[in-house]
């Protein structure tokens, strides 16, 4: 084996180059955030915190940040909790698991753009599916503007993402529940434990790894919903549904203020690293043990 180590190393060269490029870009971006850069070419003139200060003075930045927090709060917990409850119910049902899993997971194969086109139509106040169905049941829909209203637009978008990602949480929990020793659940049931107790006191605490996977991946998704924002509302009405990646895009590519765009991406970097690094350490731990 030792004899071939050199060849083994050669197999790694492409991926080493690739992650080298990736990390070099991150470092480059950090430097760019601290320089004066408006227009086409980087100047590499040190600007200190200038870009960040300008960014923090924009009220638009704080709206964006608040929206990112709303996504974290209202997207993650409902998605993984519903996913867990659904996985528990389907496991108990003992039949139809394959078909149900397919139905709920199906939207995961679609892109945010397709989801966005579909849901933007569903939410359309005058001719969308949702208002039409409500009207058919006799509701007064004249005040239900959904994504046309700044107050409700972001929540509507979160619901669309929930529709798309519930299946992901479901599949992760379905897999994890199968790993729970059957005797443990059976013993509790013999003792007369209710379903609520079995689900939340016995099974859920033993699925820490699945919950970690779900929360981390859903948290990262709140950065990726850029596409959904773009296609459903373009950040509107006003800036009410913008999130930080969207602001970064606007600053860097429309206003050509790349210094400030880079500063925004550093904020996103800190936010994402806080999710990804603990998760990677956990994955590393698992890897070393096997």
């Amino acid at each position, binding site marked *: 084996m030792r004899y071939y180590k050199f060849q083994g190393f050669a197999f790694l060269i492409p991926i080493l180059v690739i992650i080298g490029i990736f990390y070099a870009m991150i470092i480059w971006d950090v430097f760019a955030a601290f320089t004066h850069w408006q227009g086409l070419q980087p100047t590499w003139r040190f600007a200190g915190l200038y870009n960040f200060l300008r960014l923090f003075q924009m009220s638009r930045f704080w709206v964006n940040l608040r929206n990112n927090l709303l996504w974290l709060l209202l997207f993650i917990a409902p998605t993984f909790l519903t996913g867990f409850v659904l996985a528990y119910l389907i496991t*108990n049902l003992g039949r139809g698991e394959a078909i149900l899993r397919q139905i709920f997971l199906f939207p995961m194969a679609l892109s945010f753009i397709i989801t966005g086109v579909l849901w933007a139509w569903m939410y359309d106040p005058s001719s969308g599916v949702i208002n039409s169905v409500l009207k058919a049941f006799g509701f007064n829909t004249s005040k239900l503007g959904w994504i046309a209203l700044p107050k409700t637009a972001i929540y509507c978008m979160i619901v669309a993402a929930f529709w798309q990602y519930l299946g992901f949480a479901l599949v992760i929990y379905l897999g994890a529940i199968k790993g729970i020793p059957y005797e443990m659940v059976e013993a509790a049931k013999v003792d007369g434990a209710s379903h609520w107790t079995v689900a939340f006191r016995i099974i859920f605490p033993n699925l820490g790894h699945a919950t970690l996977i779900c929360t981390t991946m859903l948290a990262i998704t709140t950065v990726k919903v850029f596409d959904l924002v773009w296609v459903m509302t373009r950040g509107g009405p006003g800036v009410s549904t913008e999130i930080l990646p969207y602001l970064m895009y606007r600053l860097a590519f429309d206003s050509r203020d790349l210094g400030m765009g880079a500063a925004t991406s550093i904020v996103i970097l800190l936010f994402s690293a806080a999710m990804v690094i603990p998760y990677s350490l956990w994955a590393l731990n698992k890897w070393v043990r096997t």
Partner: protein
Amino acid sequence: MKERYFLLITGLLVSILAVIWMVPIYALVTTSLKTQEEVALQKYLDLPRNPQFSNFGKAFNALKIGLRNSLVISLSATFLCIFVGSLAGYALTGFNFRFATPLFFLIVVVTFLPYHVILIPITQFLKTLGLLNSYAGLILIYVVLNAPMATLITGTFFMKIPPELEEAAILDGCKPFRYYLRILVPVSLPGLISATILVFIQIYNEFLLGIALTRGPDVKPVMPFLAELKGTQIAQWHIQMAGAAITSVIPVLVFIFLGRYFISGLMAGYGKG
């Protein structure tokens, strides 16, 4: 007795939820086959009276360049990702390198870090190379962004192969690359298929790089085309839905016929192999 009621209510609840989950898709498909007048009636749960396949023709015409570009880009980028990734996955699991653990950590981090963070350097990088608005540029970037995920998934599958297999092959005079190509790849084919599907769908569904790295329609992938279709065919819901249906065909077929691999790829990719 109580248990029977529980199961009955559960079954009912889960079925209702499943129906709700399918309604958007149902409305998408039926609306894509209606005439504009029929759509205007807003009877979205009714079947189309006279299926209008010409809607699809119209939407396809608006999307066909994008579909071609997407197929060229995603197929080549996926192939390269899987090749680079599986070689790396083999090297990481098969040789007991001392630096395999820290390298694995660096790979996991870039797999899950959203690429939005480096969007600005990516555009500058391609500009420096003169590869903006070209197939080569897009393929290069998709490989950089997705090969780490391919490494992770294939590596997870390779770990399950008993090391004796490699030892025996090497003792028989089989060189590492030959072992990789002739034994490891065929033996772990399900793992490679999973990785391929996940990476392919990820690249095919990508949007942001498609708008940031291209100018004009020549090499732009299909998702930006679909977003544009929504912008130009305002309130032409039947055309928009036909466009959405056309762009979903490939991922949906993959999901229906290879869904098993999609799920096991998800599991492997997210650390539950």
